[in-house]
């Protein structure tokens, strides 16, 4: 008897684009003049992210991160910084919700072009334990602007 879930697709999980962001993260480093920042970790696996933002009015003018962790969390952070930079905060938070929907298997969200490279992470939805990894930078974003 096979009591486990159906086999998900490893190659859908580890796409070129994800490994590329993992190995050549965009917007990695410290941000001078940050207005908001937060350090978050995933207590279940130890992945870490330190996110820094510069908000001007309601626009995310710049964003950087420092992090350690698996390819999913680090690629997600890198991709996130790309799509939220220069965006209005409200739009960025709406994207966080789209991302969450995609992580929970919402196919429409996975086709949403505003998510940019992040759509490459759609395969994570099949790996429930890794969903937290993909959401880590987004949760950091929400935390940062809450404070």
């Amino acid at each position: 008897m096979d009591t486990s879930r159906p086999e998900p697709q490893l190659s859908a999980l580890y796409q070129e684009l994800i490994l590329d962001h993992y190995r050549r993260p965009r917007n990695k480093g410290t941000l001078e003049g940050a207005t908001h920042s937060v350090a978050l970790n995933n207590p279940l696996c130890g992945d870490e992210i330190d996110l820094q933002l510069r908000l001007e009015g309601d626009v995310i003018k710049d964003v950087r991160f420092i992090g350690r962790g698996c390819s999913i969390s680090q690629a997600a952070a890198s991709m996130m910084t790309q799509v939220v930079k220069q965006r209005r905060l409200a739009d960025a938070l709406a994207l966080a919700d789209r991302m969450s929907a995609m992580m929970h298997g919402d196919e429409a969200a996975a086709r949403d072009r505003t998510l940019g490279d992040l759509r490459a992470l759609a395969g994570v939805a099949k790996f429930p334990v890794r969903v937290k990894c993909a959401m880590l930078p987004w949760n950091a974003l929400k935390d940062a602007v809450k404070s």
Partner: protein
Amino acid sequence: MLDAARIRTDFPLLRQQENKHRIVYLDNAATTQKPQAVLDALANYYRTTNANVHRGAYDLAIRATEAYEAARSRVARFVNAWAPEGVVFTRGTTEAINLVAGSYGRANVRAGDTVVVTAMDHHSNLVPWQILCQEKGATIRMVEITEDGRLDLSDFGRALERRPKLVAFPYVSNALGTINPAAQLARLAHAAGAVVLVDGAQSTPHLRVDVQALDCDFYALSGHKMLGPMGSGALVAKPALLDAMPPYHGGGEMISRVWDDHSTYNQLPHKFEAGTPNVEGAVGLAAAIDYLEGIGLDRIAEHEVALAGAAIEQLSRIEGVTVYGPRDHRAGVVSFTYGDIHPHDIATILDQDGVCIRAGHHCTQPLMRRLNVAATARASFYVYNDRDDVTALTTALAKAGALFGYVPA
């Protein structure tokens, strides 16, 4: 080598499939699977014997009490405890260590005192001492490790110069597999006037343990890591020390006379077992010990050393793989990293082939900092693993290498 394929047939879970593969369970340092004999012991207990212990005047309650106390004696014999009443049942190693920190520690550690731990201790043998030292204004002194993942004996010696009140260390490291020279460490610590706690979570399942030969003062173990039920474990201690300690939990069974505002306490071991104990857990642990002794602890240790040796040998041949910990004096725990592939990614990829390993800091963050990694992948072996499992590990690892571009797919 043990006939692991034969042994596997005793383990219902290992007969299941995982992602259409036979389950290759290599996370034994976290918890072990249970043989049918243990499941039968639990079911039989509930079918024939279940009652609350120690206070019943009817036959069923007497049988339950006898089963519970027989389990205590079984554990005592297994580790050569000083006396059965020196065995206090707990939920596991963590609770056993917290009991010592909360009772012995609170009563004996004072401001300015030192408690010695090691850089390879599990959080469960570190955080209770941190909390105690913070409360008391005492100091934690962490003994360093050598390059190859052993305790640094000269640093241990320097730590003892502070004449610590208590010295705590793991017999076997859950992250590196190092077997520490526990008897020697205990002797040195005693000579410096310290009381000695040995974290036996990883030694009890895998080696023949003799606490009297070690001559430690406290020894903690977890049943679930040695084929026993979840929620079972014990503190094994010198009765005279336990006797002198204040109680830990208050409640039923641990008292002698209860007045409105104070109480007198029961004799050992009941003084430290407040409330209804986990009788099922004790009975299941005793059945697990029977099973393990049926195989023989020496043979188990030998089997695991052989598997770990094979794993280290094969892993070391993969370019980009780093294996941590010493090459000898080690148990069946193998921690490694593979290039820049994060251990979590390794675990996810291996899982697709039914290979279950752990990835993370293994509750040893101070150790990870010293190894200069955030996490490792860890394979840990037990009686039901064999060379096929080592091959399954390295084969699946090749897939990870291919996905991350280390080796051609």
